[in-house]
């Protein structure tokens, strides 16, 4: 059931539109419901070959030898591919935007860093023959010690998972073992808070579990090019990754996709495109490489685990005065996209609330598990879970209704956010109010009258004097802040608490005009129906501070 509250923010909208806002049937609906839509795997080719990979049975091991002689002689086998056959057998996905160092082979050569890491690819006439030949590959291993816990992995002397990052952490700005967020002085605020509550939250990994598993069909065209039927979520992203790994000019690849059987972030990694195209190059035949369900479940990248430790200082009247979040993202054995998710998480701290003192430290940590990747809500879902459970605990601690507590602390237009940009276009308060009304959740008059449009800005727009530090210098683990010690809540939470009185709190200060948005690098969309269209600048050059900025200058040099 879905309904609209058109009365809210009505003066900010022009609803006089022809097609926008109408529940028109999708142009692809008939094809989907009649089973005629063609996905990547619906493209048939004469002489299609099938590719399967040999995967590591160990979480961490040195490879002593690889013997493929029996596999090469097996029935139906057309080609065996090893790491040395891959033109550039070391890559990192975000190298396309110059972020991070190449750290992951397409086929492992000297070492495996997670259970399921591909080592050898077999191309055969049928899937069954390829799978049979996989079993004939003899790999000899020296198993190595493993590390699976993110905080264990960060300890000095921990097993080195990925030699590109010998401290088991991604390196930010060539300087720190994590990304920092510093706004105000949390330590001083904790000292003045009525209560301090520190809690630890853990999100385990989850699967994307798309109906369609990852896969690619690649075939030689007649013009020295290769056509690639791909399920990629980023067509050119996958094309660029494949071209880089195979050392091809990008226009020798003709990628076709766009109709994908579910992604949720699980089809950003180009898990199958490079090997399928390499197979087509080496055999001169069309090659299909599709993950089976078990491979997808066990060895394709999941959403990674996250651990968030949140320490809050709160006043008796419900105002949160300080929030410190320490976050550990479990990247698994290789970076893929986790380094990006960590920065997105830092940008999201401290949640949709205006808190005058915020400290964040977020780590991208390498462990011996399947590399993690993006998933729906990347960088945000885990910290939102943690923040919102913490908010519930804080409300309970100070005896304020949870919705009132959200509205009291909610960010409003004109407030300064911890990443030092002014909030605008906010609507958290209204969402809470609408749901409260829907479920008959009693709200005080003050909470019902609150608005995202007023009460923000003014002193809430200020950037406070901020304490910075040099903790976590690369190569100096002794400077890393000690793992936050879990302290029990300020007082045991009373059970069977009587219903708290409707909180009395100071109404926010009178509305003051929001400060101008500083450095907001938005390019107005020039969407005509909006009441106050910004000047159209469709081809405006980037502001000078961004210049030719790529992630290299944002974070770290690629090597």
């Amino acid at each position, binding site marked *: *059931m879905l*309904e*609209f509250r058109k009365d*809210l*923010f009505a003066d900010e*909208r022009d609803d006089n539109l022809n097609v*926008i*806002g*109408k*529940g*028109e049937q*999708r142009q*692809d609906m008939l094809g989907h419901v009649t089973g005629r839509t063609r996905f990547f795997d619906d493209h048939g080719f004469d002489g299609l070959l099938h590719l399967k990979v040999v995967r590591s049975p160990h979480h961490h091991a040195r490879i002593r030898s690889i013997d493929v002689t029996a596999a090469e002689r097996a029935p139906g086998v057309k080609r065996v591919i090893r790491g040395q056959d891959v033109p550039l057998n070391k890559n990192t996905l975000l190298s396309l*935007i110059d972020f991070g160092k190449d750290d992951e082979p397409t086929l492992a050569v000297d070492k495996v860093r997670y259970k399921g890491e591909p080592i050898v690819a077999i191309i055969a006439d049928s899937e069954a023959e390829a799978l049979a030949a996989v079993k004939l590959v003899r790999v000899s291993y020296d198993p190595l010690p493993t590390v*699976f816990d993110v905080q264990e992995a960060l300890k000095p002397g921990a097993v080195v998972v990925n030699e590109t990052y010998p401290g088991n952490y991604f390196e930010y*700005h060539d300087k720190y073992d994590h*990304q920092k967020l510093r706004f105000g002085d949390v330590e001083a605020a904790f000292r003045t808070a009525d209560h301090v509550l520190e809690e*630890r939250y853990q*999100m*385990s*990994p989850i699967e994307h579990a798309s109906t369609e598993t990852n896969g690619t069909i690649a075939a030689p065209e007649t013009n020295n090019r290769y056509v690639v039927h791909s399920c990629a*979520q*980023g*067509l050119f*992203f996958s*094309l660029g990754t494949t071209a880089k790994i195979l050392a091809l000019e990008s226009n020798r690849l003709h*990628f*076709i996709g*766009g109709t994908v*059987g*579910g*992604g949720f972030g699980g089809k*950003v990694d180009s898990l199958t495109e490079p090997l399928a195209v390499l197979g087509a190059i080496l055999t001169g035949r069309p090659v299909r490489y599709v993950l089976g369900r078990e491979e997808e479940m066990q060895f394709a990248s999941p959403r990674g685990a996250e651990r968030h430790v949140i320490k809050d200082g709160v006043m008796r009247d419900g105002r949160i005065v300080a929030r410190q979040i320490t976050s550990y993202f479990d990247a698994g054995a290789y970076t893929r996209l986790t380094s990006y998710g960590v920065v997105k998480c830092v*940008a*999201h701290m401290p949640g*949709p609330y205006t808190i005058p003192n915020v400290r*964040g430290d977020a780590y991208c940590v390498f462990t011996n*598990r399947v590399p993690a990747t993006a998933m729906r*809500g990347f960088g*945000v*879902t885990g910290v*939102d879970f*943690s923040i*919102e*459970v913490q908010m519930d605990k804080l409300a309970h601690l100070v005896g304020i209704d*949870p919705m009132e507590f959200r509205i009291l602390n909610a960010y409003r237009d004109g407030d300064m956010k911890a990443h030092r940009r002014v909030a*605008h*276009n*906010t609507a*958290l308060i209204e*969402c*809470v109010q*609408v749901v409260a009304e*829907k*479920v008959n959740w009693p709200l005080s008059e003050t909470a019902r009258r609150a608005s995202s449009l007023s009460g923000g800005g003014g002193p809430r727009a200020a950037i406070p004097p901020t304490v910075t530090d040099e903790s976590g210098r690369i190569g100096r683990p002794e400077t890393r802040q000690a793992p936050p010690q879990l302290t029990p809540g300020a007082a045991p939470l009373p059970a069977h608490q009587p219903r708290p009185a409707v909180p009395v709190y100071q109404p926010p200060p009178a509305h003051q005009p929001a400060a101008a948005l500083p450095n*907001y690098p938005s390019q107005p969309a*020039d969407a005509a129906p909006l009441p106050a269209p910004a000047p159209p600048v469709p*081809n405006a050059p980037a502001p000078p501070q*961004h210049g030719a900025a790529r992630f290299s200058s*944002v974070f770290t040099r690629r090597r």
Partner: protein
Amino acid sequence: MARHQGRGMASINYPIGMNLGGDPSQALVHANPDGKFTVALSAIDLGQGMKQVSRQIAAETLGVPIEDVYVDTADSDTGPHDMGSFASRGTHRVGNAVIVAAKEARGVLLEAAAEELEVNADDLVTDGKGNIHVRGAASKSITVKAASQAAQFKQGKTISGRGIFLIPLSTVHPETGEMSPVTAYAHACLVVDLEVCDETGDVKVNKLTSAYELGRALNPKMVEQQLVGGAWMGMSHALYETPEPYYPNPEHGGRDYNEYLMPGPGDIAPHDITVLERPAPDGPFGGKGPGEMCANPVLPAVANAIFNAIGVRIDTLPITPEKILRALKAQGGARPQIRRA
């Protein structure tokens, strides 16, 4: 044994588009000689409706009926560059590129019509039904089809347009984390009503009630599809799913849909959704993007509702019956909290 009712809430916001920007999308729009339009993209339709939302944005901007627009996407030989469908960026980034391209094509269309009608193009409007007429004088009109034919065969004009949308890449300060992550945020609040069995640890979600602020719901049916599906995913994440049930122990991962637990049809709860629309100043027709965010409030709201029902906090996901029973044992039984409404 008792089943304890609980109610919990959470409120969230969500950033729209790739963090830090630097993620361009392009669009090309052109008409055939009959005034039927094709939008060429490289965006990916994952089932979320990328093609349809682009189609509606193009039709609205061009001022033509929706059935006169089709979207052709993700052929790298014909579609212009696009970063991809992730980070809730499709509607915002691609939609803006489509607007730019469609405006340029519309400009040529109106010029062609103006030449045929011998009027100034600035005085022309479209009726969204396939006609172009002089503002305030509906009788002085020409069809989109006739104008397109004239452009192609008489005037030698291409009715086409190019569009790109790029939010320039933001830097990140190493010491303070100062950055410009995104330009638009969507918002939500969600209440979960559930019950917890103190004998089996089973959680049954009975109802979800939510409000989502999405800028503008460009296609309400597709918004509903996202929000209903996303809430299911959030419920699944909160209570069922994980490949590593005893994380950080890496064992016991499911190998298929039998072993990897997810809610079945009998576990789905009714979801009462209200949509708020506060247009994003730089969104296409104000649109933001409901894609990713809709799962997020469900997780903490479920955890908070479980606390409300039995007085235990489970801070590790997923919240399995095993964890609930262990926590109840440690606490010495259920301690229901205050009921709200």
